[in-house]
């Protein structure tokens, strides 16, 4: 029994230690509980944390408003913020949703999670990147591009259109990210909107027949191209930029200059319906839509293309006027993404 007593003491000691640890470890996070305070704002962000955190920190320093940020987790590995926002709809915790692509914003709009807000700073942004009902406003964009390995593909043979990816010449040499998730889901939705269902189905059937490799994410596409395991793939400008900065043998081709154009993929910012700090949320949206933020995102490694004229674009990325952006009705394209996913699953064997 003496032995047992000693153990019991040990167990309770452990319990106490765990609680004490929990009490002090948990504290830094509890500061943002008090709802209603005006000097704070809660932002849910799906733009990569490495790029978005400095932007939000800068706002905190400039205004003294405390920014509570929740960053999204990698979309192909965990179910992230869009689901959290949907589940929280009855008692919203967030004021602002800053998305790195249009699909999730449009899903949230259709489910009644967002509220309209027309920011004065949206003025300089072209109308196609703004919701006619003001539920979202686009800013700084990425482009969906073809990345290829310059050691394996000469610039003159580099694909000029995404149709070239279905060319048997490149059989088994193409990679794309899983088209059900993230920015690739936007890309396929854009293609279905642009081409119509039949032609888009046909393109993906040919792509499948050409042995396309479907990998977990856009950064994996880039890595396979860098290593030369495939010759080319579809990915985002910021992913290619990481390899370019690293002096890897890759280049990007902006597809379909003579045809439908390359899809521009703006960030989108929205106010949450029933936001606990709605006014602070609106100020945050004004800030994110400022020229200052577009400039910062262009100059950072995010290499995002400013949508308003007069802001200098990033290095490594061709300026907006040098390629043809796909003309898209973002609302219409993104609203069908669930249907498109269900069509694509059997075609690509997902």
């Amino acid at each position: 029994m003496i032995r047992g007593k000693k153990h019991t003491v040990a167990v309770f000691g452990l319990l106490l230690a765990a609680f004490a640890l929990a009490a002090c470890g948990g504290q830094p996070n509890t500061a943002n509980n008090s709802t209603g305070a005006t000097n704070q704002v809660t932002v849910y962000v799906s733009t990569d944390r490495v790029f978005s955190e400095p932007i939000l920190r800068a706002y905190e320093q400039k205004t003294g408003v405390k920014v509570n940020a929740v960053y999204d987790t990698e979309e192909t590995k965990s179910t992230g913020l869009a689901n959290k926002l949907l589940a929280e709809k009855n008692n919203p915790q967030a004021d602002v949703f800053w998305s790195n692509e249009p699909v999730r914003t449009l899903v949230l709009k259709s489910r009644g999670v967002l509220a309209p807000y027309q920011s004065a700073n949206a003025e300089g942004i072209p109308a196609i990147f703004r919701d006619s009902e003001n539920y979202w406003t686009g800013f700084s964009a990425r482009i969906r591009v073809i990345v290829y390995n310059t050691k394996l593909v000469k610039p003159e043979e580099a694909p000029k259109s995404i149709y070239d990816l279905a060319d048997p010449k490149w059989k088994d040499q193409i990679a794309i990210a899983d088209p059900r998730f993230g920015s690739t889901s936007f890309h396929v939705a854009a293609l279905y909107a642009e081409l119509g269902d039949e032609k888009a189905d046909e393109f993906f059937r040919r792509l499948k027949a050409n042995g396309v490799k479907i990998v977990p994410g856009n950064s994996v596409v880039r890595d396979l191209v860098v290593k030369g395991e495939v010759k080319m793939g579809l990915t985002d400008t910021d992913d290619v930029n990481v390899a370019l900065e690293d002096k890897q043998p890759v280049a990007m081709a902006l597809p379909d200059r003579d045809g439908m154009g390359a899809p521009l993929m703006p960030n989108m910012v929205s106010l949450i319906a029933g936001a606990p700090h709605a006014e602070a949320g609106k100020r945050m949206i004004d800030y994110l839509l400022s020229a200052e933020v577009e400039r910062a995102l262009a100059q950072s490694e995010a290499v995002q293309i400013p949508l308003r004229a007069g802001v200098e674009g990033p290095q490594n990325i061709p300026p907006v006027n040098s390629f043809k952006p796909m003309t898209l009705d973002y609302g219409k394209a993104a609203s069908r993404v669930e249907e498109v996913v269900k069509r694509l699953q059997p075609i690509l064997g997902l």
Partner: protein
Amino acid sequence: MKNAAVARYQNHFQSPSPRAIALFLAAVMFIAICALPAISMFGVSLTGPDGGLSIDNYRRLLTERRQHQLLLNSVLLGAGASIFATMIGAPLGLLLARVHLRGKAWRRLALVVPLITPPYVLALAWTWMAGSFAYSLTGAIVVLGVSFYPLAMLAAEAAARRVDAGLEEAALLVAAPRRVFAKITLPLIAPAVAAAALVIFALAISEFGVPGLLRVNVFTTEVFTAFAALYDFGAATALSLPLLVATMMAAIAARLLIGEQMLTGRRGSRVGLSLNFGGWQAASVALSLAVIALCVVLPVGVIAREAGGIRLIASSIKESSDAIINSFALAGAGATLAVALAVFIGYWRARMRTRWGALVDLALIALFAVPGTVTGIGLIGLWNHADWRGEIYASPLIIVIAYVSRFAPVAALLLAASVRQIPVAFEEAAVIAGASWLRTFGRIVLPQMFAGISAAWVISFIFAIGEIGATALVAPPGESTLPVRVYTLVANTPASNLAALALAQVIIVFLPLALLALFVRRSEGAK
């Protein structure tokens, strides 16, 4: 005199007593925290688009051919991983218990490393080592088998140590050691090994990271797609039902095979039959070294190589210090609360005298197989309200609740097994001697459960510190846990940084556990 004592004893178990009140409160808490999230999501899955009752989500399960293939894949993955893990783990456990080996503590520690490495990270290492072979059902079985064999090992070792030495000694009078080993020892440890195999099956079929990365279509990846690509909570929950059913079927099969003995054993005071005949010693040295080399050194080495050296690993630990502290605090609190609750549930289950006990076991194992994402969405629905629940939801406490919700059921299963080894006579004797139930529970039952409580705590802690599915959904603003940090950084981070973070996670979980294990050993040895 005697009659009065008996009457008091009977009375003790019949009228509402401190015992009944304590167990009732524990059951209410358990249902509120562990069962309600899953039950509420089940309700969502039965709701049609118009808000009325609808079974469309379930009709799809039965009619679509895609679902049949998913079911086959899920079951093959679970059974394959379970068998593979048991084949590696059970012999190792037996050797650790019964063969004299030098440096046994260190060997055991090294062999446990795969269990504390997130399966996703192990899978990543195997894709770097095995290339395209890894991207297959077989690859996923191998990775999950390697991830979970330490569970089979620990269960087999614990069981082999518990076998009543008297039984083996009696048999040795009439039979050769080999025969005693085959006819007495093995059958006595079989139930514990089978129970571990069942837990591994449940873990393997509810794992998402590995089949997701290796592109094996199973129900967990389908649940994920329903959430992440289709934002359809009802369909996602319906798709997790086959996981629960498969797990319960496995539990029933295990029970039929090994009967009521399941999860029981007897504590022996002496170490039983040693396997020091023939080439056992050499064979066990070879086996343990081979497993350490193949399942521990090789993958960890590959990750370390990708991580680009100590400097990068050290710097990623430094940058993540807040997240690391949070992870320890939250997982520690979660494991502690889960075990505290599970002690009562396990006790209640073990002392049940009805046939319904089997149903409780099934419910516990089914709750354990609920995907983390489903639990997460369910928790948001239950806790995110504009009252006191909202205060908890907006604080890190919600992460602790998520851990309790996910891991108290498995802790309760483990602790029920531990309580069954304590003879009821001890409690009866204490009560007859006049002790209150609380005193009996605190002074007699809890001390005897020490080994079980430690094991349940360590296992809950390991699961909690790697949890991502529910944590990512419920985590409030601010720095949260290390896995969430890893997952929020990976999108554009090069593989090397990811590997460094993954290794950092392995190291920070391994070091304190190693210290704890060595400390416990030393304090035991000192007696």
